């Protein structure tokens, strides 16, 4: 299941908004559809691949004239574990401004982004954000932007392979 929620708080010309994106193996999506979301950054607005032309009805998010956006917070399910008893997505969020990712490797190459462990959602006593304040990211007017979510661990798990020793029995006549 993929779910998008939008929360809005309006104060005159200022609106505080939030997206709550959920992907869940609850039987409403096929295994194939779920695994399409793994190991690649996906837009949380459209679930499209970055740069995908799929679905012309889902253009990239953009600010129009006389709009200005400040990113206030990002977070995702924390954890790196991929054990059979405690699965976590190893997820990370990134911001795409025009053609540039906000979080990059030191050499400028693409990085997965802000991990759920660094900025967990939902937060709890044991899971707190590692930032004192969120980095300043502004989207000026007429700016294309996107928020991508990267899941590193397979959602349904990776099938193991049977490896064992041979055995031969001699059955007499």
């Amino acid at each position, binding site marked *: 299941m993929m779910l998008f929620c939008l929360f809005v708080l309006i104060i005159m010309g200022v609106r505080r908004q939030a997206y709550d994106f959920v992907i869940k193996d609850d039987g409403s999506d096929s295994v194939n559809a779920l695994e399409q979301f793994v190991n690649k950054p996906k837009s949380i607005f459209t679930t499209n691949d970055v740069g995908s032309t799929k679905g012309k009805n889902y253009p990239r998010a953009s600010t129009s004239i006389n709009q200005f956006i400040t990113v206030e917070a990002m977070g995702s399910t924390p954890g790196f574990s991929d054990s059979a008893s405690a699965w976590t997505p190893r*997820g990370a969020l990134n911001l795409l401004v025009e053609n540039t990712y906000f979080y990059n490797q030191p050499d400028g190459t693409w990085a997965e982004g802000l991990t759920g462990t660094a900025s967990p959602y939902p937060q709890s006593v044991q899971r707190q954000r590692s930032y004192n304040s969120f980095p300043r990211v502004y989207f000026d*007017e007429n700016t294309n932007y996107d928020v991508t979510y990267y899941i590193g661990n397979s959602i349904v*798990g990776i099938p193991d392979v049977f490896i064992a020793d041979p055995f031969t029995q001699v059955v007499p006549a």
Partner: protein
Amino acid sequence: MATPSLFKKITDVQKTSAYSTGSLEVACRAQIGDYTNGTVNIQDVAYDETSSMLCAVGNYFSDGTAVNTGGDTIAAQYIPLVGVVTVNALTIQDATWVLTPQFDSVNIVLQTPNSEQSALVKVIALPSGVSTNWTNETWLAVGHANTDMATKGPGFNAMIAPNSNQTPLIVSVRTAGTTLYESSMEANSRPSWAWTDTGGVSTSNFNPMLLGDIVYSPENDQIVCVGSSVPDSGGAGSAGMIVESDFGGAFDTFSFYIGSSVGGSPNGPCTFRTVSIQETDVAGATVANRTLCLVGGVSNSATINGTGSLWLYQPDFSNAWPGGQPRVKPMATGLSDVSGFWREFVQNTSGGTANDVPTMITAIDKVSDDGEDIYVMMGTSFNGPFMIFASGLSCGATGAPTVFDNEVVAAGVDVKFDEIEWKSLALQGGLPAGITGISTRAALTCIGLTQRKTKAIAGGIVDLSNILPVSSSTGATANGFLISMSRAGLVFNTDVQDNGELPQNTAAFIIVSEIPNNEDDKFFIINSRLGGVAFTSPTSGSMTNIASAQPITNHTAKAYFEYILYDGVDALIAKKLQQLGVRVTITNLEWYKQDILKQGLDLDADFFREWSSSQVGENEKREKLAENYGSSRLQKRAVRTELFDDYNNREEILAEMDRFRQEDPTEDTPYSDEVADTQEEKKIEKSLDDKIRIENLVDEETDNQNKT
């Protein structure tokens, strides 16, 4: 390692529901006149992908009022039952059932000894469009039914315990009806008395008794069944039996072979309970003449240190048995066989103890839907449920070196598994509490899930002496289990069991059955009883139940993104703040606004008048600019240029006309418009006036001269 693919929950559970309102129970009461309430007991199901129908087999307890087609009243006893779900197989609580009790398959008098229930215990769906021998059949089911051995004629003696007065039963099931295909009781079918010896190999006057499993050979369009046989002459002995069809020959019938015979005073009959099939050569190519069957069962329930049997069987229809030599190899006879497969592999190779050797093989499932191709051998041992994973089965005549060609010969044979692992300890460690370590608990079925590439494994209580006992000391309820197992059997998960998500976990055992090519990996879960425990006082807990369910993991990943959108003038201020190097926040934005107001930049009415004037001016400029760029000009009238083909030299003509007008002294003015006409009139008028004035002047001059 990364999380192996497993399912941890089931969802979309559709079930026949509980006693007494479930669809199956309601159908039994409506369609079976002699039905004893609450006694229907389903043992197996098979889903036909082509018709989207489900076939369920089992039995029920007749109240003694049933009448067979011969008009005889049937005594109270178990009656084999076929049920076909013709509509809503996957939403089975709303299923439309067509139930067909097999009245004619049983003797009207319940015989003694009677340790085995009359029932159909296994059903398979035939692949669509493959079979010519069973063109009209959709399913084939096997089991056994109450009979009177002594009445069959000379040479047949009454049964002696622990054997049961049962005779094999094969039923072909069609979407439009059911045929009693093979029965020793029904006059129009072919009785097992007429079955021949496979390949001419003597069966030593044994007579077929039980059937426990069936497989279909797509390459040969034949079937192989396994079960148990007993001596015609009576006695407590018995033998495992392998039956194969001989269709397409001179006489379409069955033949059988016996193995693992036991005498003395066993606690239960020697029975082959399970069979699996492969039809490939050593290179992996599918061929018709390399069919191998792996057969498992129990040879005796009293012998300690191993009574599980394992045989390698090559059907006569695949490779003709030469000169009465059977193509069968007893890998483990089960009779404390010191050189048998279990001893060699489980004890000597894998480090197990004598109590780890299987006391019975309950099922050998060849699971390949999950992308692996593994024989999952399941059974019981004194230490608890038994399991082996094996793949790459091949065989060849023993030699130096042995050439593996998948042909079973009468001489010594090397049987090789490319990969094999004893999994009992892993299984026992992965089972729910209360099942591990009990010698009468076993896994009964294992299926592969195509999409998730994982396995589901289910089981529960088994009877070491009977397939479906009339009564069983081990027939207690609430011992069925369903667990998730990774494809290679490295990880087990009991979440479905522990969370109580099973549609009904109060039955004696659970089996699972796949739904072929289901994109959601849905499968059937069957809860069943082992003995006749609840026949007189049915409760919801002991009811048989069929459910379809979808496996899931419930793994959840969430992402959260929060932002503030500044719109309109606030966006301008936000941008100004950014240019100033001030962090853009609502507080800073409000501060900037307040600061502007404090600087006296308040607006009065004059400002709006000036603003209005400037807007008017700006609008005029814009309109002027638009006009200059042509955007506000009227469009030219469309011209149909094809009408002027005769005037292609129009420009030259016009130029010529202009030249003539310029050179013509009388045509120096426009000639065709009103202004020109007016000017022309004025010129003519002036010319006339000039002429008149000149004449007048001439006249005056003349008059003056005359005066002088």
